[in-house]
């Protein structure tokens, strides 16, 4: 690629905080769209949001309507873009409607994981050493606990639903985020500017708000996007196993579970939701990577 490295223009003083924040956001976005991975990630995430929104108002067919007269149709037959399954469900409509569940889980579980991770990491890194060491042990123990097992336990107690899936995924990946964030916080805590703030008389709460959180924000954003990608995958897996979203709600994992019995007769029926899941996860992962590079001024100039 023959892109020119962007010139680094330092933010001029005398601008309002709001305008400076806008400028910073524009810098990051500009760096993001210069990367193919960033563009791909943005497009995938954008399509997911658009699909979810559109499916609320319109789908080509009712995704839940059964029609035995148009069962087992191949793609582009009878007006069905991606064909139908044994009950005549329009696959394209199901994919569109299923994206809502994927988006909801990705965002809710991702945010939950980020919040849990941040709280645990602060508890581990900003408290007296002995207490912090206990929290670190707790994080290590929780990391060893499989997310799927946690989801199954929750499903066994409360019944499988989107909410139990979100809770299990959020807690499961929250501890992973916690471990990364703890390291990051610990290294910020070692910096001279935190020491200088302490020497100026700032106490822990102020140091966390003014110094630690702003400086770990890029790492946290990247972790959030990775947790979202993992959440998509885990939600599909849980639903496929019958521990997630109920079969009456359209979802990609549910489609997989439904069609797997006919995989040799109608492989396409499994490929559509499988492809949707794979592309979404890939897109979120690439978005996370590009976002990390774009938010780091030292990496921003290079073109991927």
């Amino acid at each position, binding site marked *: 690629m023959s892109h020119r490295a962007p010139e680094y223009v330092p933010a001029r003083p005398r601008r309002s905080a709001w305008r400076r924040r806008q400028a910073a956001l524009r810098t990051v976005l500009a760096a993001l769209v210069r990367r193919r991975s960033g563009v791909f990630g943005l497009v995938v995430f954008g399509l997911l949001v658009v699909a979810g929104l559109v499916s609320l108002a319109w789908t080509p067919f009712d995704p839940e309507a059964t029609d035995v007269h148009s069962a087992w149709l191949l793609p582009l037959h009878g007006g069905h873009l991606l064909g139908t399954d044994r009950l005549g469900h329009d696959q394209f409509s199901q994919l569109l409607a299923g994206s809502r569940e994927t988006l909801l889980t990705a965002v809710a579980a991702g945010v939950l994981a980020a919040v849990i991770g941040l709280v645990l990491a602060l508890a581990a890194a900003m408290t007296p050493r002995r207490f912090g060491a206990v929290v670190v042990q707790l994080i290590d123990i929780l990391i060893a606990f499989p997310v799927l097992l946690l989801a199954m336990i929750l499903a066994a107690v409360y019944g499988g639903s989107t909410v139990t899936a979100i809770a299990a995924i959020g807690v499961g990946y929250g501890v992973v985020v916690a471990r990364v964030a703890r390291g990051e916080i610990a290294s910020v805590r070692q910096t001279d500017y935190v020491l200088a703030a302490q020497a100026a*008389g700032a*106490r822990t709460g102020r140091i966390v708000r003014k110094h630690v959180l702003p400086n770990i924000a890029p790492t946290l954003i990247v972790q959030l996007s990775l947790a979202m990608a993992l959440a998509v995958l885990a939600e599909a897996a849980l639903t496929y196993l019958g521990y997630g979203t109920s079969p009456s709600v359209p979802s990609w994992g549910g489609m997989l579970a439904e069609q797997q019995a006919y995989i040799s007769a109608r492989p396409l029926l499994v490929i559509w939701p499988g492809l949707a899941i794979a592309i979404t996860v890939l897109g979120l992962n690439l978005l996370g990577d590009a976002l990390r590079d774009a938010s780091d001024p030292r990496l921003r100039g290079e073109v991927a």
Partner: protein
Amino acid sequence: MSLLEITDLTVRFGAKTVLDQVNLTVEPGERVGLIGESGSGKSLTALAAIGLLPDEAAAGGSVQVAGTELLGLRDRDFTGIRGEQVAMVFQEPLSALNPLMRVGKQIAEPLRLHRGLSRSKALAEAIDLARRVGLPDPADTVRAYPHQLSGGQRQRVGIAMALACKPGLLIADEPTTALDVTVQAEILDLLGKLVADQGSALLFITHDLAVLAKVVERVVVLSNGEVVETAPLEDILHDPQHEYTRELLRVARAETFLPPEVTT
């Protein structure tokens, strides 16, 4: 009563003793230099004087600031001491400033903490401080981020931040080591002038005797965590008692007065 009184301070990391029975006093308004090679325990002594020894350090003895014992003091009780009675200037001016915070806010931080000033009043005060430490265009400079300033300007910010609440004692830990020579001289002059204006005491830490000679009245020589000599500056320069002090003097002379040999 001395402003800072360190008595028999011993600091250990595990089995390793890094400070051994250190005694050091600073009277109000006095300028004391603490000199020693790297690893001699200078910076640790400085951190002890402001109550910021690392968690894993085991400290014994006594560190008193204006009569308050710092060893074993709870975090919340430090609030009236750090930044208000004792303040500190750090060695690396870039790493000692938060890269994401405007320098004006950082100068104003102690004022907001201790004087309870409003945002706008603290900013006005920060601009005034920026002027006093000789930052160009103070009203504009306070809106800059640390990476937009030069090394000398950053250190001026550090000094402004430390002196904001007019502390009785200013600790300067190698404040000129990271700067080039011409800027060093300016910063030393500035420190000396401001400390004299405010009547603050100064504890100046360095490994460089040539620098020390410009700012202090009395010198404490530290070697391997032990105080080997304490004397007025004149005596240290002209009549050093300890072998280690003589060695420091030799090194300082060699660096300051002899040009490097030119081979053809």
